[in-house]
């Protein structure tokens, strides 16, 4: 049977590539260290497959069809389409079709109905954390794209429930397979709206604190505060999927630093997986 061997989360953002060399050395070093810490934890867990929970930044979907959740079930995925991601070293990223299709069929028996794609472009949301973590060997990637870009967005409680279903579906895969979950995005940032550039430090720290509190408190706080703390902050949905996958416990902050140069409150975390 498959097993869940690790769950973690990391921020992403275009300026983590485009402005990387322009960051103050201390800031860059802290970011590098946080990404690499997660990379080391993933490497130590030796996952065969990494489910990467990320938004789609208008790379695959347009207004014609915006799925709330889409699972990549292809044998392979395309590397990032953004021109400034050209240096990312993987242009074809193997998936795991049999496992991904198993996830889809399992969650559908529980009333969760994702869309599927047999070939996704994995944009910076997926690839920046993978890149910055410095993984020597990239596991097979199963993308799980959660809409946090174009309203209406899936509810926060649904995202948490998605994580629970995901963990259950992973464990029911009838073959030996080690699976990790990486959530990407958040914490606070604001893109293309009048508050662009704002980082809500207090909001981020309270969100982080509440990941170690009850899920009701966490969801209640986010439901109330997300609408006024930057549209990019909506990506915390992906962290909720990770939190649900870990059984809503075992959260450990690796680091948090608000980085104005990359206009993101950068958060890094992992979860202890219940045996």
């Amino acid at each position, binding site marked *: 049977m498959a097993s869940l061997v690790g769950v973690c989360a990391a921020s992403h953002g275009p300026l983590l590539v485009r402005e990387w060399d322009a960051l103050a050395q201390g800031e860059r070093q802290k970011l590098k260290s946080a990404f690499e810490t997660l990379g080391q934890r993933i490497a130590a867990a030796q996952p065969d497959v990494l489910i990467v929970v990320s938004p789609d*930044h*208008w*790379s695959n979907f*347009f*207004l014609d069809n915006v799925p709330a959740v889409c699972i990549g079930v292809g044998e392979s995925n395309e590397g990032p*389409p*953004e*021109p400034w991601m050209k240096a990312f070293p993987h242009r074809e990223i193997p998936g795991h079709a049999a496992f991904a299709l198993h996830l889809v069929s399992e969650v559908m028996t529980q009333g969760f109905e994702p869309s599927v794609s047999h070939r996704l472009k994995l944009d910076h949301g997926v690839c920046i954390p993978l890149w910055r973590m410095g993984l020597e060997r990239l596991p097979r990637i199963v993308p799980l794209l959660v809409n946090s*870009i*174009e309203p209406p967005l899936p509810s926060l409680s649904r995202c948490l429930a998605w994580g629970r279903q995901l963990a259950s579906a992973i464990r029911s895969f009838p073959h030996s397979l080690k699976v990790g979950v990486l959530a990407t995005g958040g914490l606070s940032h604001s*893109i*293309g*709206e*009048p508050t*662009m*550039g704002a980082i809500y430090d207090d909001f981020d720290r309270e969100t982080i604190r509440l990941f170690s509190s009850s899920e009701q408190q966490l969801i209640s706080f986010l439901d109330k505060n997300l609408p006024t703390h930057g*549209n990019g902050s909506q990506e915390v949905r992906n962290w909720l999927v990770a939190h649900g996958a870990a059984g809503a416990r075992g959260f450990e902050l690796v680091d948090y630093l608000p980085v104005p140069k990359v206009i993101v409150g950068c958060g890094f975390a992992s979860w202890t997986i219940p045996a």
Partner: protein
Amino acid sequence: MTDYWLSKMFFDLQSPAAAAEYRADREKVLARYDLEPEVKQAILANDVFFLSKRTNPYLLRYFFFAVGMKDDEFVHRLRDG
């Protein structure tokens, strides 16, 4: 209000080749989309504030990045009209 064709143009111009074509001949590219006259005028005038009411903020930012507007100017135009 979401303007489908405005959004579609911004979506398409994420491609570097399409963005380069737009920079070389804006009228030619604009003619491919069913844009209202005031929307077309706002695009030509870089009226970020007007356009922000009609499209997704990420697409808005991608478009103005693709056409070479610096973030500082983008934010200034977005806030102050």
